[in-house]
């Protein structure tokens, strides 16, 4: 049993390790060295004085923000003997389920390769590279023939996997009972109920003002909005990550949101970040991946068809094509051990950067010139919608990329991988079902009776964190709170709140199709009042 003290030292050591060698580290060293010339630095109290200087010039704040960021993505500390993957995901059956899901996806990708006769990866001829470089900013102008490509999977396929999860410790000896078929998710995880949620989200309570409610046209701005904006400006001036996160719980003003989110996510646009993006861009120019076609197709089918996001088509390619090659993203959550087995193709060993990171028993397609690339995240149908709302806030591809990547690494990945995390999709689904079962049992029963399981309808909303379903301004208000509370829990709560809001109509329907129709259009919903009423105005 680790005591708190040693746990803390381990955490500190981990963070120090991660920050070593970063641009921030070198900058701090440089600043510390240069300040030695300054008159206020005295030899006898050099440590104190240098510290004071760094504090006064805002460098300590930058370090604080960086540490804060690391704390966000550090996996919870476990037993010192436990391997990393166990601390990332303590439940063995979850790990296994995720691993087999990943295998399935890769297998599906491989069979698409074979079926279509398209290589998984292919080096571009020089002419093609030149062409792509020149039209880097207008990739949307192309209309390639994508008819033969299908998305690797859609959210509903993933839902089937979740429904079939099995906890080996669960006692099924009772057989099928009404209880065991009360919802779709067959496992038990600890999820919070309304009384606990009230305690966890006090800033959303009826007595607390916030954007999305108290900035309504009829409310005089003096009551809340003006002051909130003033505080927001101060937070941005102070460049304080933690303060920005706390502030965001009451919503970010439209004019400050881009800066606040960048602060919360600690996007500093260091030369490192710029170089990383340029590297990925070079990788895109250099070789073509099968996955690229899936990205094209996804963007064309979803974002390009959206009334508002179609403008961002070009920049979406710029972000997503780079993202699919960003294997550094995987290290944050992958359950594969730190150095996964690599496979080489057709005897081209030694080409380190072009090795395939596959589980070894997955059949591989021989690729042209024996070059295969490391694969990052493989997109599913609707994946581009994670990025589209961010295009409203950020213009330069590099910054947009950094913001998206950080949001993915903190939140979005949990929506399409199997884990026991309270922000993971499994917990969210379970929480959604539980909230409905406890607070709207009649509705839940009715929907079940007509074979319209609520989760089947709500799942697609949750997987996309409502992107593309809510109107953009409402979506951004929701994502303000996701960032503010560092949790995706509100996605599940909102899904339940939507059902509660339309309960009357849903009680009248008699088929899954009609239930879907009642819930087809969420674009007029106001997110914050829904959440507030569900959490704080319902009689428990």
């Amino acid at each position, binding site marked *: 049993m680790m005591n708190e003290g040693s746990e803390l030292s381990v955490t500190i050591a981990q963070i120090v390790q991660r920050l070593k060698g970063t641009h921030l580290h070198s900058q701090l060293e440089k600043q510390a060295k240069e300040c030695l010339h300054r008159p206020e630095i005295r030899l006898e109290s050099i440590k104190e004085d240098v510290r004071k200087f760094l504090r006064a010039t805002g460098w300590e704040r930058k370090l604080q923000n960086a540490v804060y960021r690391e704390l966000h993505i550090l996996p919870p500390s476990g037993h010192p003997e436990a391997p990393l993957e166990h601390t990332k995901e303590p439940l063995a059956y979850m790990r296994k389920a995720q691993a087999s899901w990943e295998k399935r996806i890769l297998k599906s990708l491989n069979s698409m390769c074979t079926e279509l006769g398209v290589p998984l990866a292919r080096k571009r001829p020089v002419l093609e590279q030149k062409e792509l470089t020149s039209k880097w900013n*207008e990739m949307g*102008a192309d209309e390639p023939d994508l008819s033969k490509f299908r998305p690797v999977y859609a959210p509903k396929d993933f839902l089937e996997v979740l429904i079939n999860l099995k906890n080996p410790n669960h006692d099924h000896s009772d057989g099928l009972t009404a209880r065991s078929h009360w919802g779709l998710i067959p496992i038990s995880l600890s999820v919070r109920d309304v009384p606990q949620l009230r305690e966890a989200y006090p800033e959303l309570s009826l007595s607390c003002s916030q954007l999305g409610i108290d900035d309504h046209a009829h409310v005089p701005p003096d009551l809340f909005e003006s002051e909130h*904006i003033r505080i927001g400006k101060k937070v941005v001036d102070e460049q304080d990550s933690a303060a920005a996160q706390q502030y965001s719980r009451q919503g970010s*003003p439209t004019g400050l949101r*881009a800066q606040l989110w960048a602060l919360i996510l600690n996007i500093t646009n260091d030369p490192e970040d710029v170089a990383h993006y340029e590297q990925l861009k070079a990788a895109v120019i250099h070789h073509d991946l099968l996955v690229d076609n899936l990205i094209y197709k996804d963007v064309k089918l979803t974002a390009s068809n959206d*009334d*508002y996001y*179609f403008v*961002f088509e070009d920049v979406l390619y710029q972000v997503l094509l780079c993202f699919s090659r960003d294997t550094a993203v995987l290290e944050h959550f992958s359950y594969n051990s730190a150095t996964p087995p690599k496979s080489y193709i057709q005897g081209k060993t030694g080409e380190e950067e072009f090795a395939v990171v596959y589980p070894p028993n997955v059949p591989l397609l021989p690729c042209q010139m024996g070059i295969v690339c490391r694969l990052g995240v493989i997109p599913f149908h609707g994946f581009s919608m994670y990025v589209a709302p961010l295009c409203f806030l950020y213009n330069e591809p590099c910054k947009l990329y950094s913001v998206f990547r950080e949001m993915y690494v903190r939140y979005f990945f949990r929506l399409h991988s199997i884990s026991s995390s309270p922000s993971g999709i499994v917990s969210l689904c379970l929480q959604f079902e539980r909230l409905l079962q406890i607070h709207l049992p009649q509705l839940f029963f009715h929907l079940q009776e007509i074979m319209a399981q609520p989760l089947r309808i709500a799942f697609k909303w949750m997987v996309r964190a409502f992107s593309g379903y809510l109107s953009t*301004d409402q979506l951004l208000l929701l994502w303000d709170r996701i960032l503010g509370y560092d949790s995706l829990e509100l996605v599940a709560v909102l899904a339940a709140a939507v059902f509660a809001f339309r309960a009357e109509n849903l009680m009248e329907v008699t088929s899954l199709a009609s239930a879907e129709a009642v819930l087809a259009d969420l674009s007029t919903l106001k997110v914050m009042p829904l959440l507030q009423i569900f959490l704080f105005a319902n009689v428990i």
Partner: protein
Amino acid sequence: MSKTGNHIKADSNHREGRSCVRYKCSLMNTVLDVLHQRPGWVEVKEDGEWDFNWCDVGWLRENFDHSYMEEHVRICHFRNHYELTRKNLMVKNLKRYRKTVEREAGRLEAVKCDFFPLTFVLPSEYHLFVEDFKRSPGSTWIMKPVARSQGKGIFLFRKLKDIMEWKKVKICSSNTDCTRSDEQRDEAQVESYVVQSYIENPYLIHGRKFDLRVYILVTSYLPLKAWLYRDGFARFSNTRFSLRTIDDQYVHLTNVAVQKTAPVYNPEKGCKWQMQQLRRYLTAKHGTYVVEELFKDIDNIFIRSLQSVQKVIINDKHCFELYGYDILLDQDLKPWLIEVNASPSLTASNQDDYEMKYSLIEDTLHIVDMEGRLTGKEKRVGGFDLMWNDGPVFRENAGLETLGSPFQTANTHLGGVNDRKKQLRQLLKPFPGQKKV
């Protein structure tokens, strides 16, 4: 037109209203739907007597001067609206107005009139144009026929030789061409064009150019009474903006009609953003203050353009007019007036567009108020905000505190929340003949 006995005497606060309105409508789109569904409004046959006419400009030109209209009758155009909407006349009026402003209020004030790009009327100002052309070599110019719409006949050029041919053809062929449409006969014998400095640095959103369509309702020119509609939209060009391809008409013209025929137009997409969306996007990028200043500058365009034709337009209490203003933003977030349309398209491109245009027309009819339900003191009716009422209109109600205060905000909400249904419920009494709900 004979008086019929179906007008009702409302109480002393309200105008006389009519419980049955006979209307004519020459359009077959959203307008007709709104008129059909308005309680108490009845369509009349060809030669029947009417109280309300949503006509097209052709009908107006042929019939207005020969029609006697009783006091209550309303028609949707001013007789000589083209002083504002024909590009050459608008330019003439704006230039004259600017001179007046400079003379009366000085240079600083006159600068506020510099919202239209440098424009010359051809062929009359051809020599002036050439002078200016030579002063800024390499810049791009756009040629527009004065009377046509939907982007027809417009082209861009950089070299004088590109228009030499055109010049020969157009100027010489005037008198002999009998195939001209009615619109063009209104002009002097030559089909006039305007040549305008092309805005080479438009504000782009992810590489795409767009312009704004805003709706202004004028119910009187003397005194000037104008309303601004909260909804509107930004129309995007389908392809990325680049000065390299002047010939690619599709890039430069953001008109929906032109975009519809462009090779990559996807009709499902309807490359438009609602004004609210655009406003939010700009606010997220530039902050609230900058965007508020921008919208103030846009208000300025409406007011001054209307003032410039105030004395020229034949004011007639029977007339009202719903204008479609086209505004372009440049990279410095300066708005430019491109054009004013007296017959903005009221055909909907999709469901959302239909609902917006339906509401727009409905609110127009509320303001025209054949039913006599308004007091005349309203500052807001549905999605329309009273922008100018023989003087600026402010959000704050006048009182001792506000007298002379510099902190009054204009009563305009372009791109703001349009909760019109709620507002109308509170504002309007039921239609005459309808039971109170």
